[in-house]
């Protein structure tokens, strides 16, 4: 069983319009590598030159922010949902 990544509207142009992408489980860094192998442009958006998550990118595993879990080392288990959530400003 895989995990799923929820792609926000603003990044769906980089995933061919997909809002949900299935990924193999493992550490979050592996999940993101899998994601960016498939969608290289998405990788440039999410990660900086050092391979760290860009500061405007918030990532949640299920309901919790990975900054308060183990960052990129957070384990993503089968059935879990990874949410990528950038700020939006519209009003």
């Amino acid at each position: 069983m895989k995990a799923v990544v929820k792609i926000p509207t603003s990044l769906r142009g980089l995933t061919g319009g997909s809002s949900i992408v299935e990924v193999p489980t493992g550490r979050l860094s592996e999940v993101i590598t899998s994601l960016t192998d498939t969608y290289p442009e998405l990788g440039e958006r999410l990660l900086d030159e050092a391979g760290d998550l860009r500061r405007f990118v918030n990532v949640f595993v299920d309901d919790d922010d990975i900054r308060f879990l183990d960052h990129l080392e957070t384990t993503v288990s089968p059935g879990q949902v990874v949410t990528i959530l950038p700020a939006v400003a519209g009003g």
Partner: protein
Amino acid sequence: MSLSYQDLVDAAKQEIPEVDPAQLSDLIGNVAILDVRESDEYDQGAIATAKLVPRGLLEGTIATHAHDPNERIVVYCAGGARSALAALTLKRMGYSSVSSLRGGFGRWKNEGYPWGLPETLTGDQRGRYSRHILLPEVGEEGQIRLLQSKALIVGAGGLGSPAALYLAAAGVGTIGIVDFDVVDTTNLQRQILHNIDRVGQSKVESARETLASLNPDVKILTYNERLTADNVLQILSGYDVVVDGGDNFPTRYLVNDAALHLRIPVVHGSIFRFEGQVTVFEPYKGPCYRCQYAEPPPPELAPSCAEAGVLGVLPGIIGSLQAMETLKILLGIGDNLRGRLLTFDGLSQEFTTLNIRRDPSCPACSSESHPPQLVEYDQSCTPAGVVARAG
């Protein structure tokens, strides 16, 4: 055997203890006082800390006024008869420490104990807000609280429109609205404060006209200007809550910073195409905007509604949720969204609640004694350091 009213009162007084005004005076602060007269009697004067629970509503609403059946309760009416019957009812409902004021409010007043004219609603207000007053969590007391409350709405646009309409309809007594823009036809697909006759008019003036015609109880204060580092403290100061319905990142970070200075909660709402986010930033009690969003996305990833489009009903949903959170904060009821970010995806019709936390290294709120320096942010919204708290 039939019993007269007096027989019932006498029997009740046999079963429940009575206290004299002098005894009740000594108990104030350590006892719940219930006034079981009718509201028109209460309006003429009451003991200051008493709660109005008219006799006819006693059984149905007592649970909202007295949560602990062992709490000490003193009941009073005008002369001590109705309160004896009310106290007996409460005793039978399981309240173990209920007494009645001997001689009632009349004797209390005659013996010179303090009383006052309670804050009350007018007859018209009791009608207008009757559906609120029926709610045990609001009641007349809560409605009075709303009428005494002040909410500032940043932006009279998609989010500000439904928020302002519902807050005005709810009787939030003072509503401030900040916006420097004018109404144009592209706004009308979602900004329901405005209409075709107002095109070209300032949004805040249009908002004032709409809200004034909805509820004359509400005082509308308008700020036809852009929020800046120079005016933000002055504009936000004195409000109980800020509803952030802005449309750009620099304003949102500035509102966050000023709210930290003033310790005012911010009810955040933001939208993009079919998606929205709502949360409550309560200064120093939960995360702030910068804890959650240390920096904004680059502009190409966060286009405005004017650039990216938005389904018109989306701000109706998100702005209404902001109004709900605002009313809860003003009434002090329920669990607001502090520490939780509610996201909404209109296409899949899904709500998700994510946990958000204070960042101990947040450049804006990690030190309460050093709130952020107020500066004009550019699109990067880079923190500008902190300053020592004034006062």
